[in-house]
């Protein structure tokens, strides 16, 4: 039944289901609601906003330890919508990294995100490795091994003190 309705609508509308349906004056609100529930909802979230929230979750707990439950809580989306939009947690992480590749490394947080990618996924995932390399190449002075190492220490609150600590031993 649902499939039949979907096929009918797709045929009549030529693709843009929702707009077509809303403009139909002959449908009552109730039947419109029923048909839309069969068709499935259209995507209605701000992707940049969602990616920023997910980046926050990944920064807090890393990639592996961030569960889909955490991401659902962070974004307020349904689990199904996350899978529908990004395919998997890896797909979502790739989307977050692609966003970062567009904006470039601008803050300490975005540098931490690259560090998370390098530590957790890059050793076993070619796509993440490639993206991370691209981000680092575009970042110039923030992408050097020295600046990454410095950021790693600063994140662990070991900025200037690290040398003193080592010297003490």
């Amino acid at each position, binding site marked *: 039944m649902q499939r039949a309705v979907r096929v009918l609508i797709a045929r009549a509308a030529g693709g843009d289901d929702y707009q077509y349906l809303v403009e139909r004056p002959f449908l009552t609100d109730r039947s419109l609601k029923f048909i839309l*529930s069969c068709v499935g909802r259209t995507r209605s979230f701000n992707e940049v906003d969602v990616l920023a929230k997910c980046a926050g979750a990944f920064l807090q707990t890393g990639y592996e330890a961030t569960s*889909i439950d955490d991401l659902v809580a962070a974004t307020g989306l349904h689990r199904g919508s996350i899978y529908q939009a990004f395919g998997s947690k890896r797909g979502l992480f790739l989307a977050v990294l692609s966003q970062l590749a567009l904006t470039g490394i601008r803050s300490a947080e975005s540098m931490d995100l690259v560090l998370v990618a390098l530590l957790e996924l890059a050793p076993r*995932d070619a796509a993440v490795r490639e993206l991370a390399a691209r981000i680092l190449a575009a970042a110039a002075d923030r992408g050097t091994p020295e600046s990454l190492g410095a950021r790693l220490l600063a994140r662990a609150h070991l900025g200037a003190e690290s040398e003193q600590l080592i010297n003490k031993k």
Partner: protein
Amino acid sequence: MNTVTITAENLTVEPRGLDKVWSFTNRLEIPLANVRGATFDPGANHEPKGFRGPGLGMPGKWSGTFTRNGGKSFWNVSTPGETIVVQLVNEHFDRLFLTVREPRTIVDQINSALHNP
């Protein structure tokens, strides 16, 4: 419990033992081109599953086809267990929820076998 095998072209899911009967499914063959990704997601067990049919739904065990919001998903999950979620495209099922042994290894295998990252 399911056996998941990955070949050069296909992802094969085979419910084990009596799960074949409960889920009305001998095996699922899915071309890797139609797989969008896999995730280790134990929390998915508590997700609303939708209308069952054909299949089995008991507290702690769900096997078969479930329909929710116009999308069909295949479940073969028993709790406590380790669930992976595989998102598909252009297939009969939109999503597979599977209990497997060694979920992290299988998720990595699937994701690294995908043609389209």
